[in-house]
């Protein structure tokens, strides 16, 4: 915890997640740590997939001949093989890679487009704003998956190479997510636009472009990391959904959890559990990890939801923080600031 500082501490450039980790206590900390561990596992698996997987994702045979279909877990195939004769473990491991690609591309594209549109729309307003809001609302009206399917067909045109499939999935997710970023950034921009520091920049004579990039953008994007983590989990679900419905990637091009689940559909009734449990568990755990991180960051960012350590029993432990020499300092003391959070 912070020791007594008689002058306001210089704000260090805090590393986002580490800072929140330090700040959290109790259950919130547990949730955040659990989420971070799951996310870490996912990232490590994705990055080191070729080292971790015993076979390739499209491999059907090795030196001893074909693997054979629907084999139960054994020493050769730790998680068994699928109906198509692929190694389940390898496909689950490589599947994380595909998922990561899709998340990164989808989130990057939708953030860039959504933030830019939201900024322009919120800052200038007028007819452009109205048109963009209507379009965003219209996109909302479509079922996410249906829209993603349409975009997937348009982009890949039935072809499904690895990158074609990944881009089809990523772009279809992008289309669905742009309105979300658009709305958040637009709402923030509209709020920030009326703040006094924007007016003060305008009085100084700063150009619109300068005000947008220097003053609005940086203040408007503070909540984005939260939506980002939550959207990443949605992206995985959409990708899995596409794969499950058969709009994913061919098994020989890349491994994809949704596709494997689809193929495992018939196995479930015949008691073959290993083909569906493992890809399913992979989806659940990854989504759970991302959601936990997103939700805890969200709670920690809000001083009203953030739990704190109880005030110390012994007075004066690290007291006198409130009192700043030289008169009234609103910064760390002051009752008003206790509730709004001193870290604003």
């Amino acid at each position, binding site marked *: 915890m912070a020791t007594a500082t008689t002058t306001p501490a210089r704000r260090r450039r805090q590393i986002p997640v580490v800072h929140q980790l330090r700040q959290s206590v109790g259950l919130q900390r547990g949730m955040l740590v659990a989420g971070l561990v799951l996310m870490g596992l996912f990232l490590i698996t994705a990055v080191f997939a070729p080292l971790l997987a015993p076979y390739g994702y499209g491999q059907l045979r090795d030196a001893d001949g074909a693997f054979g279909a629907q084999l139960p877990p054994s020493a050769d195939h730790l998680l068994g093989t699928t109906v198509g004769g692929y190694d389940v473990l390898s496909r689950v491991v490589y599947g994380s890679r595909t998922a990561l690609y899709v998340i990164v591309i989808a989130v990057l594209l939708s953030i860039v487009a959504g933030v830019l549109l939201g900024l322009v729309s919120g800052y200038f307003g007028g007819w452009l704003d109205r048109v963009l809001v209507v379009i965003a609302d219209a996109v909302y009206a479509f079922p996410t998956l249906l829209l993603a399917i349409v975009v997937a067909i348009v982009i890949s045109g039935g072809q499904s190479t690895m990158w074609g499939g990944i881009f089809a999935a990523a772009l279809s997710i992008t289309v669905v997510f742009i309105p979300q970023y658009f709305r958040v950034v637009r709402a923030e921009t509209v709020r920030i636009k009326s703040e*006094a520091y924007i*007016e003060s920049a305008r009085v100084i004579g700063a150009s619109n472009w300068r005000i947008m990039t220097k003053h609005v953008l940086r203040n408007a994007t503070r909540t984005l990391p939260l939506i980002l983590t939550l959207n990443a989990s949605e992206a995985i679900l959409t990708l899995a959904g596409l794969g499950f419905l058969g709009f994913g990637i061919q098994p020989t091009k890349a491994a994809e959890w949704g596709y494997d689940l689809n193929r495992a559909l018939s196995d479930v009734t015949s008691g073959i559990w290993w083909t569906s449990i493992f890809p399913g568990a992979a989806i659940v755990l990854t989504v759970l990890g991302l959601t936990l991180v997103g939700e805890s960051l969200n709670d920690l960012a809000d001083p009203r939801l953030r739990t704190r350590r109880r*005030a*110390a029993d012994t007075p004066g432990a690290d*007291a006198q923080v409130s009192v700043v020499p030289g008169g009234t300092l609103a910064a760390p003391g002051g009752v008003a600031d206790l509730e709004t959070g001193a870290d604003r």
Partner: protein
Amino acid sequence: MSTVVDITDLQISFATDSGTVDAVTGVSLQVQAGEVLAIVGESGSGKTVTARSILGLLPETARVRGAVVLSAKDGTSAQDVVPLRGSQLREVRGHDAAMVFQEPSTSLNPVYPVGWQIIEGLRAHGKLGKKEARAKAIDVLRRVGIPDPEHRVDHYPHQFSGGQKQRIVIAQALVLDPGVIIADEPTTALDVTVQAEILELLRRCRDDFGAAIVLITHNMGVVADLADRVAVMYRGEIVEQADVRTLFSAPQNAYTQQLLAAVPRLGQGVEHTRERAARRTEGWAEAAPVVEARDLRIVYPGRLRQPDFTAVDGVSFAIRPGEVLGLVGESGSGKSTIGRAIAGLTKVSDGSLQVLGTEMNGFKERSFRPVRERIGFVFQDPASSFNPLLTIAEAVAEPLVVHKRAKDPGAARGRVDELLEAVQLPKAFGDRYPHELSGGQRQRASLARGLALQPELLIADEPTSALDVSVQARVLELFDQLQRELGFAALFISHDLAVVDLLADKIAVLYRGELVEEGTGAEVLGAPEHPYTRRLLASLPVPDPDDQARRRTAWNALRAAD
């Protein structure tokens, strides 16, 4: 007299992100029945927290030690509220002690009629029938001075004016006939003329209802007007406690003396203005004005079939080079709108407004941009007028960078340091972020930013109204000194006549968008002509109990005459 509230050795600490913070350290206080105790102090001195502890109204992060013994009005019971929880606490709230909040517009629920909200308190404590409760609500509304209460009891909060809303909040507190009412800055959000009426009502709460009042305020004029006894708080401790006359005439503690000295008093500026006038060079009055408004009209278009709102209606005035014009008026009088129009933030609807030779009626942003270089602006709230992500140096350098006097904030640092020094801030503060500065320091930085381009005209929109009295005095002094050194013309907008009087060469009084009076401080304050100015002057409480009692009588006479 019996003691209603007895606070012994109260200590309150808060759990915050940066560790435990002690807000109150060892406060002992007594409130006698039927007296008004004022707790004064700067923001962060712990006055609100102390008063709230009487009702157990502290946030969950607070830790309270000590005893707060609250007695019932009839003296039948007395109990310590600190350990109380849940239903026991609810029993005490409203019945033994009630609260009046600062902002009447947010302390009433907008979706329920006011009568319902008053009855809510009655139903929580008694087994009154619907009819009885309603009759009681109507009765209390009448007693706090709401006209036509039988009818208005069913109205919603938005149908009342700010002053009336505060009356309703007071009615809500009075209806259960509590022994003590805690009034947390009850008049801060209100205009001076309304403030006088609410103070009168609070005085009646004491006299007619026999309630003791704990008045939390930073306004020494209000203290002088209403309080019987005063407790001065500083850094979580009570530094002085005395009878109101004793405190104002012979303050013992150094801090109290400093606080009282910092309060601006009416008429202080007359001598100052004369000095300034004497220093002027010949031909000054003939110089082309920096700002000239002729029949200026500013209209905000109404939305959704609502009529247009005329904020400024036919106002004419001029500011000559090096002159400080003080613009006074209550909220909604259009004073800020005029300032914003001069800075090009609001469009002029009709008439003419010449700013540094440029006509603002129908101006183009592109052609006005060079003129902006010659105008500085200081905003009301120093907390929000700085981008939270830029350091103070970057913010002060912004005008220099925008107008290409410097390539980037780094290159402007030399000039920024000079400016910070001019406003008496240490150079090192340039590397801090706005939230690391106090309100007064931020406002000084804001002044540095306004002066960065050596403007010919500075517009200051209520630059000290968000600051504590002692800080306000320092900022005003600095403003005056800089104005003398740099010689810029200034439009100083404020709702506080005493503050404007300190600085301005000329005072203009706005009332509902119209300029009702203009002249030097001596003219406007000494011999006001317009009835509104007279009312405004009479309702301004002065920090001297005896003087204020006389003024109050005069105010009552003036009101009776209307």
